[in-house]
């Protein structure tokens, strides 16, 4: 259908994009795997779990989307594949309970596409990181915000970046005893990162009261916020029972003699975010110089005509920036359809300011190379395939620089069910370091590891029921007679 825009992802970026495009006159289908709109930032406890924390801004947004005559929201719907077709792309969708074999299949042939698929936490490996009770900071956040459950009773939060603060707040709210928050970067290093970009610091001024609020909250609860510290190892047999923490040098090597053991029943770790690139990569969109984000121009257009991107997918900068980018992307997608759209000047300004702030954040909270010294021979690098650091080293040495696929095949790193989402970036950095030592070229780029033809899990049996042609609304669907599983 000529005026159909598909927006994938209903977080702050996708919601804003859907509204902007629909306001400009386009028909919008907003697709998200979750049962409700909101994404990671506006995650809501379902009505059955009382104690709603929806901000007024979110309630208004959700109502506006729900009431918009040109927005159709497909909840509990994953885009599991994207393929090129003449003049655009075809999306393959499944609607229904997660991982159920009885989901409804559809294809969608939009005239323009906005990708707003967000990001997931980056977790760095360390000895014992695969023990139950060690989770990502985002997992603790999702469980607290979405399920009103604390991931443990005695919890340590560690990693880098300001995302640790809202997670600390949520953990306190759901009654966890937070034994500490460890920021791996040092204050000095962080301040230097900020000072390198004074203009960006100014742009981020609005965030300072928020930051002060978090620090005040931690102080009131007598929770130590220690910079230059990290979790080096988790201990336990069937679950985490204690951790070793240590002080770090500026580049994250362990300061000798600084190790301490702390009893905990949960550890939450987060080292920034990894954008969910697979649909963008499938659409042929170029990545930026870091190879971890989609490259967009000022109009949020990717290198692929008719495909726009917004939010964490294009760089990690928080919910406000994601929403501003979404507004620009939605307007641009509508213009791509030939609709008359005024230039979204305010949103463009917000994007510019927000990007500066995001760059300053990235400079202040980088992942520093010393993390590689935390690993031991038997630390798992790939959780899915249970490949240890020792095995990875061996594979790299044996097959030096023959390319990413070869490395994956010889060591099985990245070949598990998560398709390398958890291990890909870490393994690439580890392999690169090993090869640099051996004076050879890096074998595995993040872009290569994001090439995943199946963007979301699908069962083999389901593939048999894939529709081939969309109907009038740009849709096609199978109509299984029995969708109940009970």
């Amino acid at each position, binding site marked *: 259908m000529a005026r159909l825009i598909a927006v994938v992802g209903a977080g702050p970026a996708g919601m804003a994009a859907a509204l902007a495009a629909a306001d400009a006159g386009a028909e919008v289908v907003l697709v998200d795997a979750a049962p409700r709109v909101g994404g990671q930032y506006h995650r809501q406890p*379902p009505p059955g779990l009382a104690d709603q924390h929806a901000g007024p801004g979110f309630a208004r947004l959700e109502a506006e989307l729900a009431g918009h005559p040109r927005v159709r929201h497909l909840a509990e719907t994953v885009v599991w594949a994207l393929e090129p077709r003449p003049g655009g792309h075809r999306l393959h969708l499944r609607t229904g*309970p997660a*991982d159920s074999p009885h989901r409804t299949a559809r294809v969608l042939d939009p005239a323009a596409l906005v990708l707003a698929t967000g990001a997931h936490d980056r977790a760095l490996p360390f000895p*014992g990181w695969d023990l139950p009770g060690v989770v990502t900071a985002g997992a603790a956040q999702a469980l607290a915000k979405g*399920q009103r459950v604390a991931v443990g009773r005695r919890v340590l939060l560690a990693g880098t970046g300001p995302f640790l603060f809202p997670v600390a707040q949520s953990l306190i709210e759901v009654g966890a005893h937070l034994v500490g928050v460890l920021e791996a970067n040092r204050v000095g290093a962080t301040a230097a990162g900020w000072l390198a970009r004074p203009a960006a610091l100014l742009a981020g001024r609005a965030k300072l009261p928020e930051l002060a609020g978090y620090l005040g909250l931690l102080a009131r609860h007598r929770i130590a916020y220690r910079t230059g510290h990290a979790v080096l190892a988790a201990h336990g047999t069937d679950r985490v029972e204690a951790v070793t923490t240590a002080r770090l040098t500026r580049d994250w090597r362990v300061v000798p003699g600084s190790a301490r053991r702390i009893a905990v029943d949960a550890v939450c770790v987060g080292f920034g975010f990894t954008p969910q690139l697979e649909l963008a990569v499938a659409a042929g969109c170029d990545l930026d110089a870091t190879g971890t984000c989609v490259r967009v121009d000022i109009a949020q257009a990717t290198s692929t005509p008719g495909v726009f991107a917004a939010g964490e997918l294009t760089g990690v900068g928080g919910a406000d920036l994601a929403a501003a980018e979404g507004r620009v992307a939605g307007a641009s997608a509508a213009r791509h359809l030939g609709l008359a759209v005024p230039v979204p000047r305010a949103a463009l300004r917000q994007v510019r300011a927000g990007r500066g702030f995001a760059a300053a954040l990235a400079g202040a909270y980088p992942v520093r190379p010393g993390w590689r010294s935390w690993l031991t021979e038997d630390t798992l690098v790939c959780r899915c395939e249970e490949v240890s650091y020792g095995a990875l080293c061996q594979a790299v040495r044996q097959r030096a620089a023959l390319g990413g696929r070869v490395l994956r095949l010889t060591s099985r790193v990245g070949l598990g069910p998560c398709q390398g989402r958890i291990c890909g970036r870490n393994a690439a950095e580890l392999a690169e370091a090993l090869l640099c030592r051996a004076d050879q070229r890096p074998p595995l780029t993040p872009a290569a590891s994001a090439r995943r033809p199946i963007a979301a899990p699908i069962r083999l049996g389901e593939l048999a029921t894939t529709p081939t042609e969309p109907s009038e609304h740009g849709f096609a669907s199978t109509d299984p007679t029995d969708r109940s599983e009970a």
Partner: protein
Amino acid sequence: MTPEADHRGRPGPSTGDAGAPQVTVDGVAVTARTGQTVAGLLVSAGRTSWRSTRGGGRPRGLFCGIGVCFDCLVEVNGVPDVRACQRLVADGDDIRTAPRPRPAAPGGPAGDGTRTGEA
């Protein structure tokens, strides 16, 4: 906006508190809360792990919490490999966690050494 009602036959997120789902976990009857995920149910019942890995028999539970890592797999109504953090509990669900074979851990590529000893 017209939310699709393709998955009828189970309480949607808008049905409120009434009709809390009755499910079984490994055969034991449990009352869940509407809108709870299987992982939310298991964690609030005090479980931290509910399956073990094929190679090393390592215990696994929640890790990424948002459907990315595949650590949290359970069996629901006879269907294996359902991500517990993504799946909403529905009335009548038969949820099975994997038994935990204590590893002799031979075939595991990394042995069982990742656990850094006792606590």
